C-alpha cells in the first residue's frame, strides 16, 4: 500500500527512535500530548512507547469524538431512537457508548428500536429514500474531518427535498478543545504537565495548519502536525524534542504530504455554508466551551433533528467513578482509574474512553498491558 507501508517501516522506526534517544536530554522530561485518538491508536498498536526513552512521556488528548460527547447528548440520541417513527443512523463506535444508566444505542437496538450503523453518511440518505414512512436521523459526531461529508449530505438532502431526513449535529472543533485544555483549573494550577502537542493529521488536511498558530504564541506550546502512521508520530516526537531542546516554539508540519497552511478551501467553504458556530457546547471532561461546536444554519433548519423533534438538552448521569473527564483533560492516565480493566473493559465499557479504539482507555487496555517475556523472532526461526 503506497503511502502506508513506507511509513510503517521497522528499520526507519529504529533510526528515528535512535535519534530521539540521541537527542533527548536525559536531564529533563518531555510531556507531549497527542491530541488525536488516531495518534493514540497508532502509538499503542505499533508499540511506540517501548521505543521511547523513559523521559519522553505521551499524554493522551481529547481528540476522540466518541469520547468527548457528553452523556446528555447521547441520551438525546437514545430518546430519538426510541421514537417508533425514527430510524437512527450513526457510526459504529457510537453504538456501544454507555449513556445514563449504562443504556447504549446497542442496548436500545436490542430492545427492538431501529438503530443502524453507517459506514458512510451517504448511506443515511439511501435509508431515508428506502423508508419513506420513517424519519431517518443521522446522529452526526466528529471533528473537522467528518464535518464536510455531513455538510455534503445535508446539501444533498436539500437538493432531493427529503422530508424524512435530518441530522442530529454534534460536530466539534479541534482548536477550541486545545484552548480549553490549556485553560482548565489543572492547567492553571500546573497539574497539567504539557510541553507540546502532536497536532491532528486528518483534521488538519481540512483546516490546515494556520489555526494552530495561537498555541505557540498564546501559551508557549509548540505544535507539530503529524500523520497517523507510526513513523509520522515518531518523527513528530523528534521534531517536538528538537523545538524544546532548541527553545523554539512554533507550529511545524510533519504531514506535509497532506496538510497545507490553508487546508481544503472547498471543504471549509461548504462547512461554512451549512453550519455556524454554536455559542457554547458541553464537552465531556472539559465542560461547556464557547464556540467549540457547530450547529446547522437556519437555511437548513428543516434538516436539523434538534428543531424537527424539538429536542431539549438532557443532563446525563455520569458514572461517578469513571475518570474519563480527567483523562480527557490530560491530567490522568487510564491506569489511574479504579475501574480500568475490572470491571471496565472494551466489552463492558463504563466510560466513553473504553469504547472506540481511539479512546485512551481502550487503546491502553487492548494494546498496552504488556508483560515482559518477549523472545526474539530470530530465536523462533532458529
Amino acid at each position, binding site marked *: *500500500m503506497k503511502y*502506508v507501508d513506507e511509513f*510503517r*517501516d*521497522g528499520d526507519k*522506526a*529504529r533510526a528515528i*527512535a535512535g535519534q530521539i534517544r540521541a537527542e533527548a536530554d536525559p536531564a529533563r522530561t518531555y510531556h507531549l500530548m497527542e491530541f488525536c485518538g488516531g495518534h493514540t491508536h497508532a502509538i*499503542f*498498536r*505499533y*508499540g*511506540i*512507547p*517501548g*521505543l521511547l526513552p523513559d523521559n519522553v512521556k505521551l499524554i493522551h488528548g481529547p481528540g476522540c469524538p466518541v469520547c468527548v460527547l457528553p452523556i446528555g447528548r447521547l441520551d438525546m440520541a437514545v430518546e430519538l431512537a426510541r421514537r417508533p417513527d425514527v430510524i437512527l443512523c450513526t457510526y*459504529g463506535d457510537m*453504538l*456501544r457508548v454507555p449513556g445514563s444508566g449504562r443504556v447504549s444505542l446497542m442496548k436500545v437496538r436490542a430492545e427492538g428500536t431501529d438503530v443502524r*450503523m*453507517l*459506514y*458512510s453518511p451517504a*448511506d443515511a440518505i439511501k435509508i431515508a429514500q428506502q423508508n419513506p414512512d420513517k424519519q431517518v436521523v443521522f446522529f452526526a459526531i466528529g471533528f473537522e474531518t467528518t464535518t464536510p461529508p455531513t455538510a455534503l449530505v445535508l446539501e444533498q438532502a436539500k437538493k432531493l427535498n427529503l422530508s424524512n431526513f435530518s441530522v442530529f449535529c454534534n460536530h466539534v472543533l479541534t482548536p477550541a478543545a486545545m484552548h480549553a485544555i490549556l485553560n482548565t483549573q489543572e492547567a492553571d494550577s500546573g497539574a497539567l504537565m504539557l510541553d507540546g502537542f502532536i497536532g491532528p493529521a486528518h483534521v488538519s488536511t481540512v483546516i490546515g495548519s494556520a489555526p494552530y498558530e495561537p498555541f505557540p504564541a498564546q501559551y508557549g506550546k509548540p505544535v507539530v502536525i503529524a500523520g497517523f502512521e*507510526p513513523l509520522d508520530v515518531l518523527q513528530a516526537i523528534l521534531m517536538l524534542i528538537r523545538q524544546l531542546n532548541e527553545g523554539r516554539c512554533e507550529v511545524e508540519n510533519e504531514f506535509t504530504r497532506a496538510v497545507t497552511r490553508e487546508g481544503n478551501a472547498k471543504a471549509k467553504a461548504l462547512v461554512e455554508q451549512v453550519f455556524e458556530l454554536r455559542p457554547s457546547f458541553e464537552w465531556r471532561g472539559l465542560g461547556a466551551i464557547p464556540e467549540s461546536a457547530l450547529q446547522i444554519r437556519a437555511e437548513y433548519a428543516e434538516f436539523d433533528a434538534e428543531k424537527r423533534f424539538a429536542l431539549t438538552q438532557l443532563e446525563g448521569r455520569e458514572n461517578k467513578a469513571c475518570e474519563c473527564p480527567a483523562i480527557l483533560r490530560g491530567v490522568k492516565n487510564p491506569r489511574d482509574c479504579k475501574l480500568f480493566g475490572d470491571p471496565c*473493559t*472494551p*466489552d463492558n465499557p463504563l466510560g466513553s474512553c473504553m469504547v472506540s*479504539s481511539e479512546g485512551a482507555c*481502550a487503546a491502553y*487496555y*487492548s*494494546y*498496552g*498491558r*504488556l*508483560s515482559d*517475556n*518477549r*523472545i526474539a*523472532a530470530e*530465536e*523462533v*526461526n532458529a
Partner: protein
Amino acid sequence: MNRLNIANGRVEMVHGSGGRAMAELIDQLFAQAFDNEWLAQGNDQAQFTLPPGRVVMATDSHVVSPLFFPGGDIGSLSVHGTINDVAMSGARPCYLSAGFILEEGFPLADLKRIVDSMASASKEAGVPIVTGDTKVVERGKGDGVFINTTGIGVVPEGLNLSGDRAQPGDAILLSGTIGDHGVTILSLRESLGFEADIQSDSQSLNRLVAAMVEVVPEIRCMRDPTRGGLANTLNELAKQSGVGMQLFEKQIPVREPVRAACEFLGLDPLYVANEGKLIAICPQEKAEQLLKAMRAQPQGREAAIIGRVVEDSHHFVQMETVFGGNRMVDWLNGEQLPRIC
C-alpha cells in the same frame, strides 16, 4: 410423488409440516444430492459402525449473510466448518448430520444450489451426511437458510490433542493466510461495496490434519481461527493452557487486498474470520518437521511458524509488530461485523 418445481418454486410452510410435501422435498432435494446408504434407510436416525478410538463430536450452526459468496456458500461452509472442528482434535471426521431451518418463500433453486454445494463439499472431504432435519419458519422469522451441521469422528490411537496442552517453548504454526473469508463477506455488504481479487478460504482441513498428525503425533493442540480470528483463538488457547504467546507480525501471512481492505475499514486482520485455516501448537523441536508436512498439502502450502508459547501468568498474547514495537493481541472486543459463519 409430485415433482418439485425447483426452477421457480419456493419454500412453503407445508414443506415443514411433516407431511407429503416435506417428504418430497427431502427425497428430491436432500436425499438425491447427499445420496448415501444411511440416508436411504429413511429412518429418523442413521446407524453405522465406528473404527476403534475415542469418539469426537462437534456442532456448528451457520447463519452467514449473504448466503453465496466468492469461494463458497452457506452449504459448503456448513460442511467445512464442522469437519474442521472435528478434525482439530486430531480425529478423522466420519459422519455429518444436517439440520435446515428454511424461511418461507426461499427460492428452491437457491436451496438446491446450497444443497448441491454441501453434497460436493461432503464428497470431497469423504464425510457423508447421514441424517438430517428440515424445519420451515414463517417469512420474517428467519433469514433464508440456517444450517446446523454436527459431525462425529474418531481419534486414532496415540493422539491426545487438547487446547490445554500448550507449553512454554512450543512453536505456534498457522496453515496459511488470514482474513480471506471475513473480508470476502465484508466486500459483499452493500454499504461497503468494495471489490477485491479475494475469495473465502472455506475448505475442509481433515486431510491436512491427517498428514500432520501422522508426521508429528506430538502436536499439542490445533484450532481453526474462525469467528474472532487468529487473535481470539490464540487467546482462547493461552487461557486454556495457562500460558502466554509471543507472535511476530512479519511471519503472519496476509494477502495484500485483505490487508488493504482492513486498513480502510479500520479492522485488524488478526480479528477477521477464517474458515479454512488452522493453528497448531507443537514442541519446538518438531516445528520444522510439522511445517514441512503442512506445506506438502494443498491446504497448508502457505503455512508458517508465527510465534512461540511463553510463560506468562497474565496469559497475554503479544506480537512484535513489523514496526519493531511489541503490542498486546487482546481478545476480540465486540467488533461490529456482519454475520460471517
